[in-house]
């Protein structure tokens, strides 16, 4: 262990370390198919990316398949793990009328998919001062009046790659039921596919965010532990320790950091 730490000290090795971080990031954003020999791939299928046919290995996600076909993502790709909501895909399958949606990083390619990425859902995000808003249904109608046009067709719910009951939370907003808006939309990754499909032109995910913020501020009971901790901070309980940290040198800080007590899982 000691020798390893020593090697970090030299300027040269610092550089290689830096480089290796960059290399690791580059690595992590590369398609996982890199380095796989084509002759080793047994199953192939055909997908159509914006109308053009490509033969791709059958085991890939939509995102990997597009990269395999030669696309490089500048947008429409972020976490590659189903969390960031950047990789919205719209597709149809050969011989099927149904328009489907998916997150490209989370969905396996299927034979005959006609694919296109939707890197951004055009929508206005309103600004408001949460301290000045009424905790009632009127706040939703004030900023997103188009919710009153919801015809309960459920298209948004069908489009949601997170399997949320999107229509239910839009309807809950009309009733001023903040807790349902917040809870039903909690797993939203704001991919925007609901808003792209809605015939009433509602921007569900922004509405939901307003709902969660309002609920967080006015509806949810204040957690006891947070109240206690805020009180401690206010009464300067941690001031001395914090000062000490501020005045600690970097190397010492690193040692403290790596040696810290981890919270048990």
């Amino acid at each position, binding site marked *: 262990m000691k020798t390893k730490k020593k090697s970090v000290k030299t300027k040269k090795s610092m550089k290689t370390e830096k480089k290796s971080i960059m290399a690791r990031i580059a690595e992590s954003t590369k398609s996982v198919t890199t380095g796989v020999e084509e002759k080793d791939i047994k199953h192939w299928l055909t997908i159509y990316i914006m109308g053009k046919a490509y033969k791709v290995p059958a085991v890939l996600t939509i995102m990997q398949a597009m990269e395999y076909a030669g696309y490089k993502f500048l947008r429409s790709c972020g976490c590659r793990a189903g969390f960031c909501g950047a990789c919205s895909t719209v597709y149809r399958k050969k011989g099927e009328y149904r328009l489907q949606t998916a997150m490209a990083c989370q969905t396996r390619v299927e034979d005959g998919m006609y694919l296109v990425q939707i890197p951004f859902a055009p929508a206005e995000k309103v600004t408001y001062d949460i301290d000045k808003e009424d905790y*009632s249904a009127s706040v939703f109608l004030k900023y997103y009046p188009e919710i009153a046009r919801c015809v309960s067709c459920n298209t948004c719910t069908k489009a949601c790659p997170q399997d949320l009951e999107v229509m239910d939370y839009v309807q809950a907003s009309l*009733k001023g039921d903040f807790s349902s808006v917040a809870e039903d939309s909690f797993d939203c990754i704001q991919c925007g596919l609901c808003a792209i499909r809605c015939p009433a032109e509602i921007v569900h995910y922004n509405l939901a965010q307003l709902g969660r913020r309002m609920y967080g501020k006015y509806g949810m009971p204040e957690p006891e532990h947070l109240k206690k901790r805020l009180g401690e901070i206010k009464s300067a309980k941690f001031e001395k320790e914090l000062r000490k940290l501020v005045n600690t040198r970097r190397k010492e800080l690193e040692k403290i950091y790596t040696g810290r007590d981890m919270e048990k899982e």
Partner: protein
Amino acid sequence: MKLSYYPGCTLKTNAKNFEDSAIAVLKTLGVELVELPRWNCCGTVYSLASDDLIHKLAPIRNLIRVKEQGEDRLVTLCAMCYNTLKRANIFVKKDKESRDKMNDLMDREKINYEGDVKVFHILELLRDEIGFDEIGKKVKRKFNGFKVAPYYGCLLLRPEEAGIDDMENPTLLENLFNSLGVETVDFPYKNECCGAYQTVNKVDLVVQRTYTIINYAKKLGADMVVTSCPLCEFNLDRRQEEVKKKFPDFEGLPVLYFTQIMGLAFGLDKKSLRFDLNYINPEPLLKDKKLL
């Protein structure tokens, strides 16, 4: 008795006094309203175009929710919701082809809807199932020298297939008040239009209607107008402010829901009747009449 209950958005926002008082009154009568889970908008206005199926999805989806509960009846309070749900239900019952199309559109629902839920209004429940005699037995308070003008609006009466009473001369509210020992005036404007949704963009029109209706009730010696519809209530109650501006001689009257009157008659706690939400405060009058 437990009943599946559809509130609608107005009863959760502007007409909370209607909902709270109705729940309290029905509890006294041994009926528990069980709010339908996951209910959505009723559709607001029934679409008259028979091929406009998308605007009929909302009401039918609610009826699917009723079936999901293993129930086959749904009671409503709001006259607008009642009217829309009832008519959409009649439509799908009659028109199998449209019904199939709509079920196809709602392919995520586990139940294919066949038109087999009975939609009814709280006033029908009071008249046909509980009965005015039973209601009369619960009365604890006497109304002396107190007259109300019953006001039906249109949505409980028209069209005939959705009407709960004679559309030209309804008497349901009069009979109800009779059983409560509350005197009514013979009110020719009881099914006159309140202006309905014109209240959104033609306030003047509603102001004119409200002026005529309220003034006439007053002329007949009514102490208040009693309604069953949240939209009528809004127009007749809330718009009196604008009426006063336009007609300085206008004196106005309080407007209550019939369930609030029932609550008074049953001697229920004032808190559950929510007079604080009526725009023209009825409390001074009620105190004056020794009803509070």
